[in-house]
């Protein structure tokens, strides 16, 4: 499973990097798959409502009304029909890519299995909605879909009378069956939407809208496709003739030729096995979960910064339980915590300058406490023998850091870039542990823990608590968000950064200059 994940991740990273050359980072389609799924869903909904206004639901009238839309009302209803079809296909594409990408990035196990489990029924429901939609046109494709679907359902052996008999001859066809299909085609997407709402419950600030530029580009391209290559019907259904050459929608119906020919036990058995496998994937094998973040009430003042920064809604603020004069305290829901450490990075008490008392912040990771990170930092700095000395802070999901240590470069690994309190950067430079600091991690807009990069950048820019202090010389700090394929970029950055640092005055000289400036300002 690991090898499969790694190979898939490599494919996605390569594609992302390629798209990153032509799209602005925020617009990269592969970094917006979930949001694009929602976008397609809304396009399908709006175009579906429009088309429904012109659609006759009777078995005898359905085909004619769709033909009228396509041929006589092509500039509005026909266009909407095509948009409805192509956006539905787009939805399947981004949904499957989203699923594969989350699998490749190992974001489906442990605390994240909830999103996976709630996503699988949505996948099934989207397919049901699409298949019932094809049924409604009542052309030759609809006839094929209706017959193969009902024959497949009959093979389950749970229906009293074969459903497929409803399509035996024109005399057997009933409007009531059509009404049922219309009902399903409307109800199923609504149920899917409800489950999508549940799907997003365990993540903070979910991105459900793609960036405007990407949305406009996607919609425009769908519109152009709908105008240039409009969706058409495949001749009226005729139950006295077998649909022969069928233009299948391979996004929705790729298994239909198999369903039609293979025996019932095989198709039902493999369908159920596939569904069970999808549902069981988070436990194949289960994730070895790191210990969840732990609150130390002695140092927690209930400031709620960890609550605001947690990407998984794993922290809640509850009434104070220790009698100290604060209104609230942080509480960690262990089942939601992925141990990313972003909460520790947000804690105002997480400062490495504390030497008189042990470094125990208000919230911390038991498996990788900030005190241990400070120790590793000291050890890495002590090994540096070549100037300029650079300390690289990086996460385990981004640029690979193994073997990067050298006489001039020391590496300190974090759980996530957002795990690092900004005061550590100040600490490195003010305590003369290195001449420069590099922060690196996942690719831009693709943080494994969703907000690690954003929060780090905002903390450095002084836009989000805790701020990186103004006194930290920014020319001695570099960030690189490059992902697993960014090793060459990191090496190149280290080379140029070292050259730049060599040209800067020493840290001692800078501190002396600053003291002089402060003294002069005081004299004035």
């Amino acid at each position, binding site marked *: 499973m690991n090898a499969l994940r790694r190979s898939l991740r490599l494919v996605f990273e390569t594609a992302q990097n390629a798209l990153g050359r032509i799209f602005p980072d925020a617009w990269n389609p592969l970094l917006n798959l979930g949001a694009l799924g929602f976008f397609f869903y809304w396009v399908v909904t709006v175009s579906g409502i429009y088309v429904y206004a012109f659609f006759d639901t009777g078995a005898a009238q359905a085909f004619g009304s769709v033909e009228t839309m396509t041929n006589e009302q092509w500039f509005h209803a026909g266009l909407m029909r095509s948009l409805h079809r192509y956006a539905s296909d787009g939805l399947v594409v981004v949904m499957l890519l989203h699923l594969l990408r989350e699998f490749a990035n190992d974001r489906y196990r442990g605390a994240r299995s909830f999103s996976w489990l709630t996503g699988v029924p949505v996948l099934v429901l989207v397919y049901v909605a699409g298949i019932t939609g094809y049924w409604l046109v009542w052309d030759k494709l609809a006839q094929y879909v209706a017959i193969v679907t009902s024959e497949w359902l009959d093979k389950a052996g749970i229906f009293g009378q074969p459903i497929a*008999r409803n399509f035996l*001859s024109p005399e057997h066809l009933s409007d009531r069956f059509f009404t049922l299909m219309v009902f399903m085609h409307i109800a199923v997407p609504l149920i899917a939407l409800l489950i999508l709402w549940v799907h997003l419950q365990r993540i903070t600030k979910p991105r459900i809208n793609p960036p405007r530029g990407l949305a406009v580009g996607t919609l425009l391209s769908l519109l152009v496709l709908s105008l240039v290559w409009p969706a058409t019907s495949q001749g009226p259904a005729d139950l006295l003739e077998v649909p022969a050459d069928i233009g299948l929608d391979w996004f929705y119906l790729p298994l239909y030729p198999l369903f039609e020919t293979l025996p019932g036990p095989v198709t039902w058995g493999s369908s159920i096995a596939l569904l069970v496998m999808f549902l069981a994937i988070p436990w194949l094998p289960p994730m070895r979960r790191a210990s969840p973040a732990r609150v130390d009430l002695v140092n927690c003042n209930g400031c709620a910064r960890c609550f605001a920064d947690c990407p998984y809604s794993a922290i809640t603020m509850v009434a104070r339980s220790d009698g100290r004069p604060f209104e609230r305290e942080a509480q960690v829901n262990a089942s939601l915590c992925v141990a990313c450490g972003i909460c520790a990075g947000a804690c105002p008490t997480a400062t490495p300058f504390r030497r008189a008392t042990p470094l125990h912040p208000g919230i911390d990771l038991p498996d990788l406490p900030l005190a241990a990170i400070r120790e590793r930092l000291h050890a890495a700095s002590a090994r540096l023998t070549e100037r300029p000395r650079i300390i690289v802070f990086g996460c385990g999901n981004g640029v690979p850091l193994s073997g990067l240590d050298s006489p001039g470069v020391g590496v300190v690994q974090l759980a996530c870039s957002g795990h690092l309190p900004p005061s550590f950067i100040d600490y490195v430079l003010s305590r003369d542990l290195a001449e420069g600091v590099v922060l690196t991690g996942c690719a831009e807009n693709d943080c494994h823990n969703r907000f690690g990069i954003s929060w780090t950048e905002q903390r450095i820019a002084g836009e989000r608590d805790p701020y990186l202090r103004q006194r930290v010389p920014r020319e001695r700090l570099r960030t690189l968000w490059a992902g697993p394929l960014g090793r060459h970029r990191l090496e190149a950055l280290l080379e140029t950064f070292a050259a730049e640092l060599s040209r800067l005055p020493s840290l001692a000289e800078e501190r002396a200059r600053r003291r002089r400036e402060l003294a002069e300002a005081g004299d004035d």
Partner: protein
Amino acid sequence: MTDLLRYVGQAVFYAVVVLGIGYFSQRPIYEHIPPDKAQILLSFSHGGARVEACRRLSAEEIARLPPGQRRPNTCSRRRLPIRVQLVLDETVIFDQVLEPGGLAGDSPAHAYEKFLVPTGRHRLLVRLEDRGRTDRFAYESELVVDLRPRQNLPIDFKADKGGFIFYL
């Protein structure tokens, strides 16, 4: 990369994606049935005769029943299996005994069978026995038909309409 090249790149990306969507939305064409074949679809729901005919209960039998369940007749709910045979040009292509449906065997038996046959002129003979006899069929219908390429010929059975119905 210049902005112009990036925009061109984006346009190419969108074009490739929507062309892919447009193409696989209806292509490649799937040949569901060869052009030189037609289909015979035999399907019906029909209940065979009851295994045991209804019989009047004797006074003693009625007296033995609990007071709330006393009735004049007793009827077995279970039905007999149905035998169906389809003969195409003197060749038996289907001959099967269909068990009644339902857990108690008291529901109609169902048939839904498809046969791909060469196009052209054929003589079809279809028979059904629903009373448990082995030496004869209760219903029998014959049809000489010129099957067109990809024609679907459904055959239904409705006892109240006299037997088999061919939809042409």
